[in-house]
């Protein structure tokens, strides 16, 4: 098969040179498509990171009244900690709450801290959930716990003794779902556009070589022998496109990411090496697939053997 391989590569190169405008067009569209796919994937990675970091901050705080019976508090803490939905429960004493408050407030408005005479902050239980989506279910459970009413900050209005960011979580999930759907649709559309472009490039390559193909058939060249250079051409075009897209993404990641990170320090914007290797692999594989499928479509329609 060694002559065949040489033949196929030579044919593909000759084809590429002969139809370089068309081939270049196909390469550029694949490049742009895969670049956008890459950007979408990277965005999706970043969004996932952001969501995760926000999710981690979602917790339920139970405020405890001053002078609550400590065995009641412990019993509530144990009951909540045993629940399947709960990852961890942490007791934060009045003193610790004050210290955290001071730390957070000191920088921005030290005068407030200075004005504090006694400790106005309640002790609390910080409940972290395994899955933040279960936050409301957990709130109901806590409210039903008899110890909760005994120790809570405002027994007259139990809801006020619980703090959790229900709305934020809901909105965030709705948003990430929309982002995911939009990205998927976008990627799907781009894949279709790339397929159309490859299909077109290969169709024109077939058209440009129809005379050779006719002669090859006539002298008895095998069907796959005739098809392979075109498939290979589609794959080579999309691999070049994929390589360019990966290179561009690499440059963007190296040059732009740190600056974005500086501008938005509160959001985890980084795409780590593993993720970018995975994205590169996805681009190469989808490039090869797009090349093969696009060329195969063209062969089916325009190359009857």
């Amino acid at each position, binding site marked *: 098969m060694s002559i065949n391989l040489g033949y196929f590569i030579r044919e593909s190169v000759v084809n590429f040179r002969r139809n370089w405008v068309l081939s270049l067009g196909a390469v550029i569209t694949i490049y742009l498509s895969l670049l956008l796919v890459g950007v979408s994937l990277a965005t999706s990675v970043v969004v996932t990171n952001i969501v995760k970091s926000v999710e981690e901050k979602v917790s339920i705080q139970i405020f405890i009244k001053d002078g609550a019976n400590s065995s009641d508090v412990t019993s509530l803490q144990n009951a909540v900690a045993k629940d399947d939905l709960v990852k961890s429960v942490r007791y934060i004493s009045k003193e610790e709450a004050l210290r955290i408050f001071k730390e957070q407030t000191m920088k921005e408005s030290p005068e407030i801290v200075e004005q504090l005479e006694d400790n106005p902050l309640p002790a609390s239980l910080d409940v972290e959930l395994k899955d933040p989506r279960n936050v409301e279910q957990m709130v109901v459970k806590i409210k039903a716990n008899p110890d909760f009413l005994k120790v809570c900050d405002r027994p007259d209005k139990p809801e006020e003794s619980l703090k959790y960011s229900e709305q934020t979580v809901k909105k965030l999930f709705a948003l990430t779902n929309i982002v995911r759907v939009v990205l998927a649709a976008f990627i799907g559309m781009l894949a279709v556009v790339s397929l159309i472009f490859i299909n077109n490039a290969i169709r024109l390559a077939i058209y440009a070589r129809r005379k050779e193909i006719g*002669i090859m058939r*006539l002298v008895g060249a095998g069907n796959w022998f005739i098809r392979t250079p075109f498939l290979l051409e589609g794959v080579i075009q999309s691999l070049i496109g994929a390589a360019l897209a990966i290179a561009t993404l690499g440059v963007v990641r190296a040059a732009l990411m740190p600056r974005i990170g500086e501008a938005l320090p509160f959001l985890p914007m980084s795409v780590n090496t593993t993720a970018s290797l995975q994205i590169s692999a996805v681009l190469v594989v989808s490039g090869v697939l797009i090349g093969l499928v696009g060329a195969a479509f063209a062969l089916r329609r325009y190359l009857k053997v």
Partner: protein
Amino acid sequence: MVIGRGRETGANGRGFCYHYASGTALPVPADESRACPRPPSGSFLEVMPRMIHMRNVSKYYVEDKPALVDVDVEIQSGEFVFIVGHSGSGKSTLIRLLLRELLPTTGEIVIAGQDVIRMKSWKVPYLRRNIGCVFQDFKLLPNKTAYENIAFALEVIGKSRHVIRTQVPEVLRLVGLEDKIDSYPDELSGGEQQRVSIARAFVNRPPLLLADEPTGNLDPQTSLGIMKLLERINKTGTTVLIATHDREMVDTMRQRVIALEGGRMIRDQDRGVYGYVD
């Protein structure tokens, strides 16, 4: 007026002649009915004395307008046969059926013992490697030299470089073009281009060579040279089938002639002539 005889091979392998004039079949011994060159001994041809068998072959491109109707053709190995007829009489259709570029609407086609109609499509290239073909428009690649055009045909069926380097110059010598080996088609005359295309068809030494109007674009003098070349190829044992409407040529060559009219076989004659005046 229809004269001449058709030919069929019976189950016993003996032929019989069909008198169109009288409408009766007259049995004759097979060896009397066809004096064909003996194939080289030990070759593929010897075990396959019957090269082409077409029976009840009809081809309808569109309904109600057949291109071929009930055609029966038997051609033995080593024969030289003309298919004649007006333009549109079905000659090219017959050639394309033999190349399995087309499938017939009805009938059976067997080439060198292989059922062409039931043949799997992946086997078709192997059938074509055993059939050389030549066309009116030469079908040469303009960006390749004479040598490269022939080498291309060998290369795409996976012949080694060694085979290509030895066989291409040899076949170009055979067709009398050894000094045009590096010429591009547009540097060659029509006759020379047709010689290159014949060289390409013959370089594999196929047992069967089909030619569709090989002299259609050539002047009479050049045409005669091409026909003589095809005759020489036939002498090597290759069966040659030529579709043409070149009356003078057919009359000069005195070979077997099968005449088509409106897709029907109207005549099959040894040492025949074109036969009718337009």
